[in-house]
Every structure is written in C-alpha cells, then in structure tokens.
C-alpha cells in the first residue's frame, strides 16, 4: 500500500534525525552544556524498556489473552517504588567504583573475579541475542506489512527485505559505534546516545497514542463502544476477564506473580536498563522524578493496548491479520497510510532504541569481560609488564613511548568494542534469519527476561549480604542458567522443531521426572513460571549454600564491605572521606602505574589522575618513590572504568608487587580506617569548637576594648572638666598672692570667680560619682509609691525662686490626679529639677517662660519641660544626652557640668521609661520623659535586686495598677 521507497525514505530520514539528535547532544556535552543533566531526559531514557516487543507485542498478547500484557508493566512500576532504596545504591556503587556494566558490577562485588564477569556476560549474550533478533523481526515484518498491502505471508521480493533488515542492523551498528564507542571514557557515559534514546521514547509514545486515538475515536466511538461490541462476541468476552492464559476461568495467580516478578527484575537487570538507569545516570537525585515519570510513561503507553487489540479483532477478524501488527494494519486497512507510516516509525524507534543501548551495554561486557581477559592471559600480560618496565627506566623516553603505546591500546580496546557491536547485531540478525518465524514476539522477550533474572540473587544479595562469596555467586549463576536453559530455552528450541520434542513429554532417556517442563513432577504451572521457579530455586540455594560453605577471602570480604556499606562512605566531610579504607597492600612504583594508566587512558588522563592524587595527599607529583595504596586504588578504579574491574585488577597486579589480602587484613584495614575516621571527625569537632571559642573570645575582647575606650574617654573628659575650674582657681589665687596690693574690687571679682569655680568643682565631683554609680549598676534606689503630680509640682515650687531671680516665669499644668508609680522619688525629683533648671538657664533674660506639664498617655505618664530659649541646634540634637555635651555656645552658655541630662536619662531608663528631645520649630527646647505604670520585663531586670526586697515585688505590681482618687 505504501511504496517501498517511501517507507525506506521515512526510515532513513528517521535514522538521520537520530544521528542529528545524538550529534547535537554530544557537541553540547563537549562544550560543557549538557542537555541530559535533567531528570526528564533521564526518566524518558529509562523508557528504553518499551521495545518493539511492547509496541507490537502487547497488542498481540492482549488480542490472545486479554489483560495478560499488564504484568510486564506492573513489575517495573513496583520496582520503581524501591528505586530510591535499591537503584540509588546501585548507582552509588557503580559511580564510586567506576562500574560500567552489570557483569562488571557482579564480578566486582565478588573479588573482581574475571570468571564471574565472563559467566554473566555469557548468560547475557545467550539470553539477549534472541531479544535482539526480535527487534529486527519487528522492523522487517512491519516493513513487509506496509509495502505488501497487508498480506503477511508473501512479500514481493523476500531477498530484498531480508537485505533491508540487514541494512537496518548495519545502520544501527554504525550509529552505535559512532555514539557508543567513539572514545574510551572511563565513566562510560554516552550523552548523545542518551539524548537519542530519550527522543525515541517520545516518538514511540506519540506514535502509539496516535494510533490508539485513531482507532478508539476514529474507527469506534470511544472505549465504551469497543467494550460493548467486544462483549457481544463470545470468543472475545473472555479477553475481558482476569482468567488463566487459556481462559480457563480460574485466576492464574502463579502466572501473574511470575510475570510481575520477572518484569520487576528485568527492569533492573536487563543490560540496557542497567546501562540507562545506573551507568548513564548523571545525578542520583534524578531518580526521584524518574520513579514516578517512568511508571506514568508505562501507564500511558498501555492505555490503548486493549482497545487496539479488541478493535483489531472486531474489524479485521480473528484470522484477518496477525494481532502483533494491529498497530500498523488497523490504520492501513482504513486508508490512513500517513498514520501507518508514522506508526511504523514509532515501532522503528522502539526497536532501534533497544538495539542501540543493548548493543552498547553487551559490547562493553564482551570487550571488558570476555575479550580483554583472554588477551591479557595470552600475551598481553607479559607485554604489559615488560613494556612498562623498559618505559619507566628513562623518564623522558617513557613518556613518549607511553603516549604512542597508550594511543595504540586505547584504539585496540575501542576496536574490540566496535567489533563486538557489529558481531552482536549480526548475531541477532543471524538468529532472526534462522529462528525468526518460530515464536511469537512475547515469548522471546520472556525467555530473555528469565535469563537475566538469574542475576538477581548474586546482584541484590551482594549489595546487602556481606557473607556472600564468589563461589556462591558462580554456583548460583551457573546453576540457575543451566536450569533456565534446560527448562525454558531447550523446550522452546524443541518446539520450533529443530530437535525432537519427544523428551518434553517423556523426559530425557525416558526419565519422566526430568521432563523439562515438569521437572520432578511439578505440574500445574505454565512453562515460564515452572522454569523461573526451578531456576531461581537452584540459583538461590547454590548461592546461599556455597556462600555459607566457605568464609569469604580477603578480597571478597573487602569488596563486600565496599558494596554493602557504600553509603557509609563518600558523603561525609572531606577530611573524614580521606579516611576511607583502601584494601590494598603491596609495593608499586608510581612510574609503572603512570605508564600503565597512560597506555590505557591516554597520557593526559593519566597525568590528571596523578595530579589529583598529589593534590589530595599533598605530595608533589613524582616526588614519592613508592606509590601508596590510595594512589594504586585510584589508578585501578580509573582503569576499571575503561576495561572493567576484573581486567583492571589483573593489570594493576601485573605492575605491582602485591601482598595477598587475608580476611584478617581486611578487618585490620577497616579498623584502621574507622579509627582514622573517628579521629578525623573528632578533630573536625574540636577545631569547630575551637573556632567558636575563638570567635567568642575575640568578640568579648572587642567589647572589652570598646568599654575600655569608653572609660578612657570618660576619664579624659572628667579630667578636662576638673582641670578647667581648677585652672581658674589656681591662676587667680596665685595672682592675688603675688599682688598683696591688689585693689579691692579686683580682688572681690577674683574671689567671686574662685568661689563659683569651686562650687562647679564640687558639683562636678558629685555628678561624676553619681554617674559612675549609675553606670556600674550600683546606684541605690529607694522605691516607693510616687505621686508624680505632687513630685513635679514640688519641683516647680522649688525652682520658682531661681526662675524669678532670672526674670523667668514657670507654669505648671497637670490633671487633678494621676495613677501612682513605683519609683525612687528622690531620683525622679533630681530628674525634674535638672530639666527645669536647664530650661531656666537657657531662657532669655527678659520674658523667659518655662512650661511644665504632666499627662497620662497610654499606659504611662509623660512629663514635658518646655522653654522659650534658643532651643537645641540641629547638629546637637543627637548628642545632647551624651556625657559632657553641653548645649549652646561656650561663651553664652550657663554654667553646667554636662552630666545632668545623661544622669537624668539613665534614671528614667532605670524605671523602664524613656527621655527624649521633642522637635520644636525654632521656639525653644522641649525635653520630655515618659514613665510606664508597668515597667516591662527588660527594664525590671535592670533594677538591682538587692535594693528591692523580694516581698515588695508583689506590692509593686499592685501599686502600678492602683488609681488614686482625687
């Protein structure tokens, strides 16, 4: 229905777009402006879980068995609930020890065992190749369907489309080589690939939803319509019930459980999921959003599965078309060729996404865990060590040698990877060619799932169980794999008709108990549940049994500690982090390590490692003759990123003289480290408290210094104030003494001055003492209930005579009665007298007026003393209450000590009140103070407790509220 060139063109265009997206992301990564450092991209990239199997197979499965497609997606949702606990730990472990594949992860945990790594890789390859074939099959059959007018059986030219699938495989190999194996990155991250996969996840989602909407709302009147019509058809009604696969009626709990568990495990253990979720994870925190976005994605992509399946069955009939192609055939059959093409592109994206990531992941494993160890064992190991030794003799020469040799080795590793990528895809293609027609898509997928499920005990056990050993892991993996192959793989091969399937029913050699699908007579389970049950039982039993059989070796124990307690390290402070244990003992020369690192990582990266190390340890590059354990560990970790931890271990062991590590050594190192850690933490604690103490001390010191300066200033001011009158007294006395014949009026004038200055001195001495008492808090207070009205009136009366002598008049204004205050009446009198006499001093000689007023304002009393003198100049308003600041001009200023106002203010402050200078617009000064009936807690605290017997405090409160009746 659609011409081949159009389909091919669309596919080519789509792949070109993918290249562009990947290239863009890679360029941005190189520029340091990564586009994948984002939780959304991360969550979308996890949707690589949805392959062509989801895209086409779910509908097929739904058409055959109803809601049985669901567990495959419920599992991942459940798994993501545990993401923050389990996946985060996996990510932390992988990033800390630079683990780049699931084989590496498991092998690293069990003492960096090359054997474990190889076994995991083998299981993966065997388990995954059919899965890869499945993707190719989807691409090719989709193509066939589109170009061959919906007739599934006979294409126009089988040879042509076979080549087409090969071309897709080759194109993807090219893509994967370009974006997955361009450079040897020790973190094994591929930003371009991640961006492309996230993009693909969007494309497939949109395409699938588009088809779903088209069918549900275009061809039918919504979901209800489809449901209603499906119910009318008897064979289809069973699809809507939760029954066993055969529609037998009873709900298949075991099968639901199996499928859910299987998909739960595979979303964590499939190589591509591990690659995306763990290795490519940029930031652990992205996991939080992915934990709900990814399940939501699965939910959305599954919404239209059942409607599509039912709709396809209704429209095309049970035998009309393969249900697995409904996504394409439904639009096609209804003339929506454009949509069909888009749906095909969606399927293509689902397939290519899986192929790319799976291939990268598996090729890394094949290269690091199968090929590299073999190379190292054959000739590499000797070559490495000898070259390294010659290289390190002459420093300069070795640098150049290493640069050349390092380049060669990096290229070698990359080429191995490229070859592995190509080989895996071709292997998938080959499998597809041989077995392509044998199975439904879903079955292939589930067989792969069951294979990778064998990693679960070794991987999860290793993350939480310290006693697990290499033997246990090997035994479990091998046992589980063998049972899997026997109970699932072999029967499926037999069912394809390649080998005689007689042994399925009768058992091999006629032993019925060994019948692959009814092992030891276990019946009543479907073959998948049966296989999973036996394989995992054998796996776990061997894993636990063999682990308990022998205590872990030193290396196993150390790796166990590093894995299980990964959160206990690293995130502490830098000082404490330096105390992390390093499980390595031996001797190595830095030059050898340098040479090794240069050869595998390139000279620049190698130099960087050493610079980092010298920065952290504080030892200059190249000055230490023997490498410490920390440097060796650092180099080994970086190498592990490039060639896998097992190979890295072998390489480092080749250049260093190592001492074997016993379990006792491990405990010793651990104890040392934890002790160091305790010391480091204690040191930090101590230095922190010292810092605090020192800060407190310096603050106290600064305060003391300020006080000292204030005191110094005060003493200096007092000295000045005392010396000034003394100067006049002494000078005039001396003059009179020298001139006995001085005229009487002159003598009279001098004596008057002397008496005046003496009085001034006396006043000053009194006030300085007063001030000192107030300031030191040793003032004596004789508190009593005070009627402020009477007190102010008495003060006014007392100063009336003084005012009259200066020609001034004092007026007094107050309400008839005011509430009583609790205060020292003598002190308050002092304050009022000071204010009034100040005012009297400043009023003009003629017509001077002083107005004293008392008011109740709010919860306190306010006294104002207002005069018609010159007022306080603008510039002096702020300082008028400071000590020795006398108002007015020195020449015209009346005599004073400059202490009256500061003392008054302190007295008012003492009773919780406030004294201030009111703003007067040029008509004299107005000083005011306010005393509260109820001094607040702070002011109360100022009152010296000694002068106030405890019993009186009660009375004080009562006195404050009492109103005096007139």
């Amino acid at each position, binding site marked *: 229905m659609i011409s081949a060139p159009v389909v091919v063109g669309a596919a080519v265009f789509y792949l070109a777009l993918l290249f562009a997206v990947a290239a863009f992301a890679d360029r941005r990564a190189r520029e340091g402006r990564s586009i994948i450092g984002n939780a959304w991209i991360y969550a979308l990239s996890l949707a690589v879980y949805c392959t062509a199997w989801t895209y086409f197979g779910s509908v097929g499965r739904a058409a055959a068995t109803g809601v049985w497609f669901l567990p495959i997606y419920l599992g991942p949702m459940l798994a993501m609930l545990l993401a923050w606990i389990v996946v985060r730990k996996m990510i932390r472990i992988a990033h800390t020890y630079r683990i780049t594949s699931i084989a590496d992860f498991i092998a690293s945990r069990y003492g960096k065992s090359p054997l474990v790594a190889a076994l995991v890789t083998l299981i993966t390859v065997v388990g995954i190749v059919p899965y890869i074939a499945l993707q190719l099959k989807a691409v090719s059959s989709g193509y066939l369907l589109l170009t061959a007018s919906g007739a599934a059986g006979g294409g126009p030219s089988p040879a042509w489309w076979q080549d087409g699938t090969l071309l897709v495989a080759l194109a993807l190999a090219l893509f994967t080589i370009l974006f997955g194996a361009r450079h040897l990155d020790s973190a094994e991250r591929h930003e371009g690939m991640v961006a492309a996969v996230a993009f693909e996840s969007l494309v497939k989602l949109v395409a699938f939803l588009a088809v779903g909407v088209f069918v549900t709302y275009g061809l039918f009147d919504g979901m209800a319509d489809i449901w209603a019509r499906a119910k009318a058809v008897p064979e289809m009604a069973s699809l809507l019930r939760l029954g066993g696969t055969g529609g037998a009626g009873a709900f298949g709990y075991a099968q639901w459980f199996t499928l859910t568990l299987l998909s739960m495990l595979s979303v964590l253990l499939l190589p591509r999921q591990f690659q995306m979720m763990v290795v490519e994870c940029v930031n652990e925190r992205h996991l939080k959003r992915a934990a709900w976005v990814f399940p939501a994605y699965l939910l959305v992509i599954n919404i239209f599965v059942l409607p599509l399946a039912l709709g396809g069955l209704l429209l095309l009939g049970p035998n009309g078309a393969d249900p697995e192609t409904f996504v394409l055939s439904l639009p096609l059959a209804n003339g929506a060729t454009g949509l069909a093409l888009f749906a095909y592109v969606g399927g293509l994206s689902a397939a290519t996404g899986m192929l790319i990531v799976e291939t990268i992941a598996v090729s890394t494993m094949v290269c690091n865990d199968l090929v590299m160890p073999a190379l190292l064992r054959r000739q590499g190991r000797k070559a490495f060590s000898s070259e390294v030794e010659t290289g390190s003799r002459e420093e300069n020469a070795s640098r150049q040698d290493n640069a050349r040799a390092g380049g060669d080795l990096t290229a070698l590793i990359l080429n191995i990877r490229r070859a592995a990528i190509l080989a895996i895809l071709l292997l998938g293609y080959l499998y597809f060619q041989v077995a392509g027609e044998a199975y439904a898509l879903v079955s292939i997928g589930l067989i792969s799932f069951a294979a990778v499920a064998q990693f679960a005990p070794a991987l999860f056990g290793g993350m939480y169980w310290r006693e697990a050993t290499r033997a246990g892991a090997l035994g479990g993996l091998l046992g589980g794999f063998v049972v899997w192959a026997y109970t699932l793989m072999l029967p499926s091969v037999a069912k394809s008709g390649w080998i005689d399937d007689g042994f399925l029913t009768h058992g091999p050699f006629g032993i019925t108990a060994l019948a692959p699908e009814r092992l030891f007579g276990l019946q009543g389970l479907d073959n998948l549940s049966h296989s999973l049950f036996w394989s995992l039982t054998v796996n776990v039993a061997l894993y636990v049994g063999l682990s308990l059989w022998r205590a872990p070796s030193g290396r196993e124990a150390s790796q166990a500690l590093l894995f299980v307690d990964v959160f206990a390290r690293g995130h502490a402070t830098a000082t404490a982090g330096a105390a992390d244990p390093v499980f390595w003992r031996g001797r190595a020369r830095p030059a050898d390590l340098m040479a090794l690192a240069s050869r595998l990582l390139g000279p620049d990266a190698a130099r960087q490692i050493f610079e980092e190390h010298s920065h952290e340890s504080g030892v200059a590059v190249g000055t230490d003759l023997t490498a410490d354990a920390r440097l060796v560990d650092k180099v080994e970790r970086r190498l592990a990123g490039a060639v896998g931890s097992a190979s890295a271990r072998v390489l480092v062991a080749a250049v260093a003289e190592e001492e074997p590590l016993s379990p006792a050594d491990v405990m010793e190192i651990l104890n040392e480290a934890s002790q160091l850690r305790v010391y480091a933490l204690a040191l930090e604690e101590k230095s922190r408290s010292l810092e605090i103490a020192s800060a407190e001390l310096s603050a106290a010191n600064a305060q003391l210094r300020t006080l000292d300066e204030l005191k110094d200033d005060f003493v200096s001011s007092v*000295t000045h104030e005392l*010396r000034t009158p003394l100067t006049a007294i002494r000078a005039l006395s001396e003059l009179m003494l020298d001139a006995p014949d001085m005229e009487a009026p002159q003598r009279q004038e001098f004596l008057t001055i002397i008496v005046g200055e003496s009085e001034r001195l006396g006043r000053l001495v009194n006030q300085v003492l007063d001030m000192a008492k107030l300031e030191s808090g040793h003032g004596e207070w004789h508190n009593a209930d005070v009627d402020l009205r009477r007190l102010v009136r008495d003060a006014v009366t007392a100063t009336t005579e003084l005012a009259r002598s200066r020609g001034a008049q004092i007026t007094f204004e107050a309400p008839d009665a005011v509430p009583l205050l609790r205060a020292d009446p003598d002190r308050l009198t002092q304050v009022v007298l000071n204010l009034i006499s100040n005012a009297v001093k400043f009023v003009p000689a003629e017509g001077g007026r002083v107005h004293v007023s008392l008011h109740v304002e709010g919860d306190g009393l306010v006294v104002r003393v207002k005069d018609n003198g010159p007022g306080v100049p603008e510039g002096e308003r702020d300082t008028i209450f400071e000590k020795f600041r006398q108002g007015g001009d020195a020449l015209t200023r009346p005599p004073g000590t400059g202490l009256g106002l500061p003392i008054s203010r302190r007295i008012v402050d003492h009773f919780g009140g406030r004294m201030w200078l009111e703003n007067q617009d040029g008509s004299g000064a107005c000083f005011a103070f306010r005393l509260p009936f109820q001094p607040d807690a702070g002011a109360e605290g100022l009152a010296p407790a000694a002068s106030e017997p405890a019993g009186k405090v009660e009375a004080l409160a009562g006195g404050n509220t009492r109103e005096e009746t007139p």
Partner: protein
Amino acid sequence: MIPELAPAKACAAKVLIADDEPNIVVSLEFMMKREGFEVLVARDGRAALEAIRRERPRLVLLDATMPGMSGFDVCEAVRADADVRSTCIVMLTAKGRETDMARGVGAGADAYVTKPFSTRDLVQQVKDMLAKDTAARALATGSAGAGELPKDMPA
C-alpha cells in the same frame, strides 16, 4: 593708643589669648597686662585665627579644646600661612594625655602647657620666648642691613 602700638617698645608686644572659658581668660588677661603686653582676646578657634591674621600678635596663648575650630586646627592653619607663620604659639590644654601632647607638638606649637599651670612659670615662659624671638628677628634684619651697607660694619 599710639604709644602702645609703637614698635620700638619691646615690652608692648601683642599677645592673643584664645580660650572659651571666661574665667581662665580673666586670669590670663590680668597676667599678661600686668607684664605690660598688649592683650587681645578671642573666644573660639575661628575668632582666634582671624585675630592672628588681622592683628599679627607676637604670641598666642591657645586653648586646645575650643568649640568649632580646635586649638590644634588653629595652630596648623597658622603654620601653613606664610604671613603669620612666625607667630609664637603656647598651647594650653586641660587634657593631660600623652597623645594630646604629641598632637600639640605635631601641630607645630612652640610650647605645650598643661592646665592648671603656675602663673609665674607661664609668664616666664612667655617672656623668654618673646626675647628669643626678638633676638632672632634682630639677627635677620641686622644681617640684611649688613649686606646693604658693608662700609658701616666694623671690621
């Protein structure tokens, strides 16, 4: 008064008293007049500087702490002014701290007297200072005259 202004009379030298304490001014004025000086009075720093520039007194009794412009400021201003630079300055201060002394000397005062002072000592100091000043001036004018009239000079 013309006789008092006559330059020939050495004891009629002009003395400025700058202090903001009236009673101290009374005593200083009495003292200086008794010694036969011509006395001028300024009540603050600004007035003192004006009087110095206008009246060109031979000597100033300068209080260090006056409102507005302090005695130190006046002293610095006088030393910076070429016309009145040679004025003798006796700084009077009631602050006895060493830092204040240092500041007075730094400002360029010829002498620094702490209040309360001995009247006799102060008078003696003023007299000595003026005598020294007179001698210095005479030497300056004398040598200048010698340059003009070499024949009159004894061999």
